[in-house]
């Protein structure tokens, strides 16, 4: 799988309102930011999965009333995203939603 294909699949998943991530078939490391080699073991044997969209807030900051966070997904990878909802706290559960943005966001459950 080359990088262009990865971005293409990501775009398709986003259009279907799904959160993609990459799993290394060799070392089983899961990661979100697209690379065609596993950042841990260097293997090119990777596949794209769909997250179940559940996670928790690892850390967050509120700027101009919008919430920016690092979210830890249940599949074990972390990523940045905008968060919607009230009273953000570390460890609070979120689910992935797609707002006006093409990109995945979190909603506090």
């Amino acid at each position: 799988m080359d990088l262009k294909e990865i971005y293409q699949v990501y775009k398709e998943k986003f259009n279907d309102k799904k959160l993609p991530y990459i799993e290394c078939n060799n070392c089983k490391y899961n990661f979100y930011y697209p690379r065609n080699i596993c950042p841990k073991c260097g293997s090119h044997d990777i596949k794209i999965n769909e997250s179940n969209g559940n996670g928790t807030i690892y850390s967050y900051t509120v700027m101009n009333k919008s919430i920016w966070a690092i979210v830890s997904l249940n599949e074990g990878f972390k990523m940045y995203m905008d968060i919607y909802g009230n009273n953000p706290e570390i460890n609070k559960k979120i689910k992935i939603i797609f707002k006006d943005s093409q990109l995945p966001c979190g909603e506090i459950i």
Partner: protein
Amino acid sequence: MISGFAESVYKKYGRSVYELMEESFFKALDMAGLQRSDIQGFITTFMPGIFDDNVYMHFFPDQVCNYLGIHPKYIDSLDYGGPSVLAALYRAERLIKNGGIDNILLLFGGKGSLVREKKVTVDSFESLYENVTNTPYKSLFREYNYTNPLSDYALAAQRHKYMYKSTDEQRAILAVKQRKNANASGYSMFSGNLSADDVLNSSVISSPLHLLEIVYPVDGFHAFIVSKSAGKLRALKIQNYGEAHWTDIPPEQNDIILISASESSNKFRNEIKKCDFYELYDSFTITVMLQLENTGIVPKGKSGKFIENTSMSADGEFPLNTGGGSLNRGQPAYMSGSVLLYESLLQLNNMAKNQVKSANKVFINGIGGWSRNHSVSMIIGE
């Protein structure tokens, strides 16, 4: 050894960035008693926007040498953000030791005001241009609401509060203690009385960080001339050195408050504790706290209490950021490394107004890059 050093720092400089760098260069030459023709090496850095608004410049260090009329045998540009100048000092010392080069100019800075006025940072400068990308993952970021590096340090501060129960008050007290040093330094951009309440009542820009615990980007250059002979200055050199480059982006780090400074400092922890004063990178209050803990000066999670209970003035038990740090000097072109080095040289040469008594050894730590990826740790002494 450093034979000359100078700064030219302005809130907003009305002329070109080239004129600004020339000003600091000639001041440093004058201190060193050297001519332009004596400069045989040149090291600098480039960041988006800080050079008269340019996103990027081709063969940039060569063009600067051309403008300044210097003809070096060695040219380099380091790209570690804020601590680049510290890494450049180490490389310059090594080059001179290897022989064949006697004087190397380190020239670091730019115009932060141009970026500041566009309401972006150097990290988000690409957002102004549809077809410009400065990071490989831009398409997975650009629609989000974030302001790096501010938001990344805010995430670290929030996490630190959660893990170690550090408080907003503790960070505010650090800002107050640094301001007291700034007031005594005689060369601070921001001065006057500051209380913890002033800090806590200033706007929350990116929670939990308040306006008065965030550096203000300004226009400025620092020039340091590294030479075989220190000339009329003290014969100072780097005594201990480490650098670390952690390339994982924050979401892919196991722990965002365990930072690269833990590696860059780990070979000389015992020496760090014996220094006479400390200059720690202060882009934000939390930056200082993370370095206190990650360089082993205080145990993990204890920086807040340490700040509350420790005198950080020039005559205190732990003189820290004795010029007031870049929180008060302003941050020239989004980089604080030069501010730390400049104040260290004032102190070590007994030229500071807020002078530490018998200032013979300083520990300097710089942090930079995409959040906290690069760290440079060093002790300078005679």
